């Protein structure tokens, strides 16, 4: 299958003198792959290896009345049974590393279970078979609770309370808001002027990443009270930080070795197996292997969130989009994991690669008794992109234009102002559509062929923006410092209007940075055409602040995160 490069487009921006990018270079690990010798996390032999399997809730939602391990402990080969009380810090949320969100998820459930398959105890034995036999002998008494599986049902008054940290079944954004909000321009005015209004309601089910290699980890004691952990994680530093917090150890006590990942697609970020494997190694002083079997991988490991969308478009007679309103619900399942971030990431992605002078969005991160969801390919944006493109097709029909023509009219141009209060630059949607039309033998009239991303911007200034509580004047650039976490939104009061295109050249664009957002966040997002991307180096010039200990953290880990911010 030959790739069609179309290098004549934007040729003046490119010297085409790169040595590796764009060249068919052999992967550095392909020889290992074809000989089966690439080292995956499970390809490590240990003497005295023990195997960990979890006791899991058979209920979607239930109180735990008692756990009796007395029969299980006596089973042959059993070395240790871990319960909630053994976990040093048994409440966490992944993005506490960025101080985003409340700690809401236990490593092992203590008072209740909130999703089918939630781990309640961990059994460690000399063989996997023995561990499974002992798991069958752990007796847990539950009191079933009503469960909710639908985002709209979960937000109704009287719905079962899924997540103890969020009593109203939704994540709290920006210190008190029930959803992540975006306000840009005046959508009410756009709808009042519209010749056509197009509405749509769209759904996406959860999708399991289903890598052929399941989630797992092997941990073992090293010298000096240090522990090595072989893991398929997508974010090595992220996993180290998560484990350091849960296990209440300094980072330098953990030696993480990653590398070859047998497929992940977003499903190996949550670091669910590492903490228990390491804790098992700590308690038994032997190597401990914890691998999900395929049934666990399908049911228990976090899939992509289910999403629900309502989109409303205001269209002018000539096909221009005047306003777009979004209402979205991400189904986080029982715990936050990364869905809170997915919502913010999604918001930065709106309204799609189109110039719309008024946009409004409310996106909820909702808790239900489904399996906790997390990142997957096109994290946070795949669902809304599907919805947006269906809306575009409907809009085209409403104004009597073909689907490509409608998109060409509304596509970003360089210099168009985006809802993130930055000017679009290096846009290329127009050219992509033109090439696609040609390849699909889709006849475009000449004036569409003459369109260019470099010309024809129609909306270059930040408009007056109407919110529920205020009217922000035109040109207002500062958005509230949101979500109290570095890197997720920043003060954009510096330059917002690079109308010229940035050439592609060998000089590095990002000077070295040690901010935690880059370490943590970079592994999480497979960026598609995200316009939220450029993180300006402005952070490095900010005056460092010494923060007091955040209210939720009880561990010495938080002292470490404070020292990171000081750099």
């Amino acid at each position, binding site marked *: 299958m030959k790739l069609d490069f179309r290098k004549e487009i934007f040729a003046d921006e490119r010297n085409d003198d790169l040595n590796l990018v764009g060249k068919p270079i052999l992967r550095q690990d392909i020889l290992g*792959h*074809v000989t089966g010798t690439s080292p*995956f996390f499970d390809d490590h032999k240990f003497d005295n290896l023990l195997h960990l399997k979890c006791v899991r809730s058979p209920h979607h939602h239930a109180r735990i009345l008692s756990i009796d391990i007395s029969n299980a402990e006596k089973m042959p080969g059993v070395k240790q049974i871990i319960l909630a009380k053994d976990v040093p810090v048994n409440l966490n949320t992944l993005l506490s590393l960025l101080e985003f969100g409340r700690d809401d998820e236990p490593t092992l459930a203590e008072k209740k279970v909130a999703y089918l398959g939630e781990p309640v105890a961990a059994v460690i034995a000399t063989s996997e078979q023995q561990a499974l036999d002992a798991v069958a002998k752990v007796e847990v008494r539950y009191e079933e609770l009503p469960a909710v599986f639908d985002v709209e049902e979960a937000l109704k008054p009287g719905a079962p309370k899924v997540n103890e940290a969020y009593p109203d079944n939704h994540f709290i954004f920006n210190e008190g808001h029930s959803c992540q909000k975006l306000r840009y321009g005046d959508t009410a005015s756009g709808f009042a002027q519209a010749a056509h209004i197009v509405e749509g309601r769209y759904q996406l089910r959860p999708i399991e990443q289903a890598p052929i290699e399941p989630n797992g980890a092997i941990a073992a004691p090293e010298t000096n009270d240090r522990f090595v952990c072989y893991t398929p994680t997508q974010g090595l530093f992220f996993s180290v930080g998560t484990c350091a917090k849960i296990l209440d150890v300094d980072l330098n006590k953990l030696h993480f070795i990653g590398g070859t990942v047998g497929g*992940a697609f977003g499903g190996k970020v949550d670091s669910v197996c590492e903490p228990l494997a390491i804790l098992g190694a700590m308690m038994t002083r032997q190597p401990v292997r914890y691998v999900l079997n395929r049934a666990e991988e399908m049911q228990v490991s976090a899939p992509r969130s289910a999403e629900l969308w309502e989109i409303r478009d205001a269209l002018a007679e000539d096909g221009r989009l005047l306003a777009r309103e979004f209402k979205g619900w991400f189904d986080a399942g029982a715990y936050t994991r990364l869905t809170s971030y997915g919502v913010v990431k999604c918001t930065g992605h709106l309204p799609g690669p189109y110039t719309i002078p008024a946009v409004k969005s409310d996106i909820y991160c909702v808790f239900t008794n489904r399996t906790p969801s997390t990142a997957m390919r096109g994290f946070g944006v795949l669902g809304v992109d599907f919805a947006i493109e269906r809306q575009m097709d409907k809009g085209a029909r409403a104004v009597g234009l073909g689907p490509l023509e409608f998109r060409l009219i509304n596509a970003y141009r360089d210099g168009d102002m985006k809802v993130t209060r930055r000017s679009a630059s290096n846009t290329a949607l127009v050219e992509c559509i033109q090439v696609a039309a040609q390849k699909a033998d889709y006849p475009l009239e000449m004036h569409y062929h003459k369109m260019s991303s470099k010309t024809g911007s129609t909306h270059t200034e930040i408009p007056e923006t109407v919110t529920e509580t205020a009217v922000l004047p035109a040109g207002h650039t500062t958005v509230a410092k949101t979500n109290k976490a570095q890197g997720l939104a920043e003060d954009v009061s510096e330059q917002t209007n690079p109308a010229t295109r940035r050439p592609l050249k060998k000089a590095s664009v990002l000077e070295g940075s040690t901010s935690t957002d880059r370490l943590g966040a970079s592994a999480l997002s497979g960026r598609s055409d995200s316009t939220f991307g450029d993180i300006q180096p402005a952070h490095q010039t900010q005056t460092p602040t010494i923060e007091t200990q955040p209210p939720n953290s009880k561990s010495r880990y938080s002292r470490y995160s404070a020292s990171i911010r000081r750099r």
Partner: protein
Amino acid sequence: MKPTPLHFTHNGRPISVFANSGESLLSLLRLKLGDQTPKYGCGQGGCGACSVRIDGELRLACLTLAETIDGQNIETVAALSAPELDPLQKAFMDYFAAQCGYCTPGMILAARTLLETNPTPNRDDIIDAISGNLCRCTGYEPIIDAIMAVAQKEVPA
């Protein structure tokens, strides 16, 4: 239950080892013999990552009771790698037929088995031959291209 003594050949080498009762061949190969080329993907016979050859026949090690292979020849992808790379291994490299690499040993064994019984497969034959090997990364086309390329070179002019 007492472990069972086994004598068999593994990639041409004679092996004497004990199998625990209920132990799978996959576990025996990986944990006891240190041959980690067959992989665990599902334990259900659906993904093919554990593919091995037993007396020349393609089988699934995760579903094979280890003690049943007494006296047989076990072949994993390690047998194809030496002294020189198998043409399939070279083709997989050239055609970008591996990304994460987890399905690759199974794919190569399935392809090698196909070419031994049908040296002139068409595309549908190849698809059928690898229908027991799941890949979540490549979308299969580069894998099929690689196998086809080897098939076409291996046919005498």
